[in-house]
């Protein structure tokens, strides 16, 4: 039971293991293992990239339409292009501060295949001309820090990182940095604040778009661990091969952490865009069904910040635009399945409590709003709810995210979906994310809340009669 990471299961027939090919390899985390196992030869992509021009390398990433895997799903190649021309230095910050509830993929990538990530960092650094790469690993992930430190030491000794890499004029340092426990640091401007040694509070955009004014106010590209881990496979294969997996708008694969009430929870590398949630839940390759004797009540398609989906949405594909149009998001590849035994109020409170605890406190609507959302939900769960509480909750939520909030359709009640993303009165999306479980749960399971808001027994007072 001592925590060794569960290896990813095999991919479906015809789907290549782009990032997970060494998860089951005992020495896949070492330089030797990286070179001799997996779906491509380790560091061969770097050699190929050093033969081409930096702009050609960027073009390949753009042509492959490699979407960011951190949550927003923005194309990495286009993001790289946002750096202003002729402004130096440029930095790369790798976002390994994985903490979105339900998400469990970057940790596996860092523990199981650190060299893949390092090679990805080198390719990105070469392409954009980075002076230095900061690999920011979440503080609690001690083992991932060890694996990356060991891999960096090997890579430096082998001349793969540092000065004159592989005998060329390409030189870059990769520095392992580690955090100290704060979800908000996963937001890219907060990550940068944290890296500068400050409280991890997001910066206002504009003007602080990282690509223009990032670390030390220099142009900075912040990429997720999984995004960069795709690069070695991409550059040792071809854009065509990469784009042959998934769909046109969502090519390649995604690592999905499937957790909750399924028979076989685990981390699966699936084709983006073509795999459906039903396949994910029911296929023997993946979830192998909702746990025996139970049925699906709802599921979270993309981490705690994503509005909930219900049985009507299971046939949707894992495709960003489709899921967005249906009222939620694919987010960070965290799918949490809840069966009919789940108390919607209790699950909602737990998710909201997370956002209340993790709010950085910079913006008032989020700092105060998430705290009140938690308090109100807690009193409803404790049996002290007031009849006005549901409207109050929705009102507090509306102050953080005004207007119709993204939510899935509810055909039984003839309600349409509200597409993603939500509006916000805050600097970053943390506050608005706290609204996702509230609107999802109240719209669908209002009766569960109302059942908990009970009338208190009246204390009889002599001589006074009350009509009840």
């Amino acid at each position, binding site marked *: 039971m001592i925590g060794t990471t569960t290896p990813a299961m095999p991919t479906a027939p015809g789907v290549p293991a782009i990032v997970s090919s060494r998860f089951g390899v005992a020495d896949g985390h070492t330089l030797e293992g990286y070179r001799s196992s997996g779906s491509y030869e380790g560091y061969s992509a770097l050699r190929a990239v050093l033969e081409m*021009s930096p702009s050609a390398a960027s073009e390949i990433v753009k042509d492959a339409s490699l979407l960011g895997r951190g949550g927003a799903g923005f194309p990495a190649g286009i993001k790289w292009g946002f750096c202003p021309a002729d402004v130096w230095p440029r930095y790369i910050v790798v976002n390994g501060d994985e903490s979105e509830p339900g998400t*469990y993929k970057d940790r596996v990538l860092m523990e199981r295949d650190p060299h893949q990530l390092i090679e990805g960092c080198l390719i990105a650094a070469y392409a954009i001309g980075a002076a230095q790469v900061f690999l920011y690993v979440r503080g609690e992930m001690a083992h991932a820090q060890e694996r990356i430190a060991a891999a960096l030491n090997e890579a430096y000794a082998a001349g793969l990182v540092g000065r004159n890499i592989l005998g060329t004029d390409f*030189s870059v340092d990769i520095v392992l940095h580690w955090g100290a*426990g704060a979800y908000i640091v996963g937001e890219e401007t907060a990550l940068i604040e944290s890296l500068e*040694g400050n409280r991890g509070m997001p910066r206002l955009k504009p003007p602080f778009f990282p690509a223009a004014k990032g670390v030390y106010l220099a142009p900075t590209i912040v990429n997720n661990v999984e995004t960069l881990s795709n690069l070695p496979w991409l550059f040792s294969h071809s854009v065509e091969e990469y784009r042959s997996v998934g769909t046109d708008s969502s090519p390649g694969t995604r690592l999905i952490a499937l957790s909750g009430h399924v028979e076989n929870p685990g981390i699966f590398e699936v084709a983006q865009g073509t795999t459906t949630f039903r396949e994910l839940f029911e296929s023997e390759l993946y979830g192998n069904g909702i746990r025996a004797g139970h049925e699906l009540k709802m599921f979270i398609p993309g981490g705690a910040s994503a509005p909930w989906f219900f049985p009507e949405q299971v046939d949707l594909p894992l495709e960003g635009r489709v899921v967005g149009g249906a009222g939620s998001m694919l987010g960070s590849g965290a799918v949490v399945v809840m069966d009919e035994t789940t108390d919607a109020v209790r699950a909602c409170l737990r*998710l909201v409590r997370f956002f209340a605890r993790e709010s950085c406190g910079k913006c008032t609507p989020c700092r105060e709003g998430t705290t009140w959302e938690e308090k109100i939900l807690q009193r409803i769960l404790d049996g002290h709810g007031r009849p006005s509480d549901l409207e109050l909750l929705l009102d507090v939520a509306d102050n953080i995210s005004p207007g119709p909030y993204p939510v899935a359709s509810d055909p039984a009640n003839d309600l349409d979906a509200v597409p993603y993303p939500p509006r916000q009165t805050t600097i970053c999306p943390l506050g608005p994310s706290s609204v996702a479980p509230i609107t999802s749960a109240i719209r669908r399971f209002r009766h569960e809340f109302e059942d908990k808001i009970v009338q208190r027994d009246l204390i009889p007072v002599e001589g006074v009669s009350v009509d009840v």
Partner: protein
Amino acid sequence: MARLTPENVELAHRIIARYPRPKSATIPLCHLAQEQDGWLTDEAMVHVAELVGCTPAEVLGTASFYEMFKRHETGRYCLNVCTNISCQLLGGEELLEHAEQVLGVRPGGTTSDGMFTLEDVECIAACTEAPAVQVNYRYFHRLGPDDLDQLITDLRSGALDDVVPHHGTLGRVHQDLDGDRIANITPPEAQTEPVWIRRHRELAESNDGGAS
């Protein structure tokens, strides 16, 4: 106890050298102090401030934001039970309640023998292995109440000493980056266009010049 030891000061200087600006080393140095003392003392924060060149208040300001930094003494083992959604669905909250009863403390409390500090933590990225627990940031997966009892017994008896280091220790392998190994770490003001970028730009410009 409190200021960094001479060995740790040397390590601190090596860590600082990895950043273009010293203040970026604040969090790693606070971790170093916590690894030394088990928690982050006022004296250590004053020392960190001297090392990175800011005020002690700035170090406190940073450190107090992050929940891993403990501003008071903790138990030998920080037992962190995850109760977030994936773990909640499979009994994380019940496991926390069980831990409260077994240890006789509420989350945030330390047992009177100084062995355990219990914490109710947010998602620790082991969602498919729920319910999950970390002890001094080492993972234990899919624990039921009996498994937790066994874990506590093993920790008390020292049977897990090789697996679980004392509180404050994170990675036991460190990046070995200093002196000759560093390729190009200078303050941002001192940086110019990277050589390989310049080479390719000049090459492209001369090709364009040749074509026109």
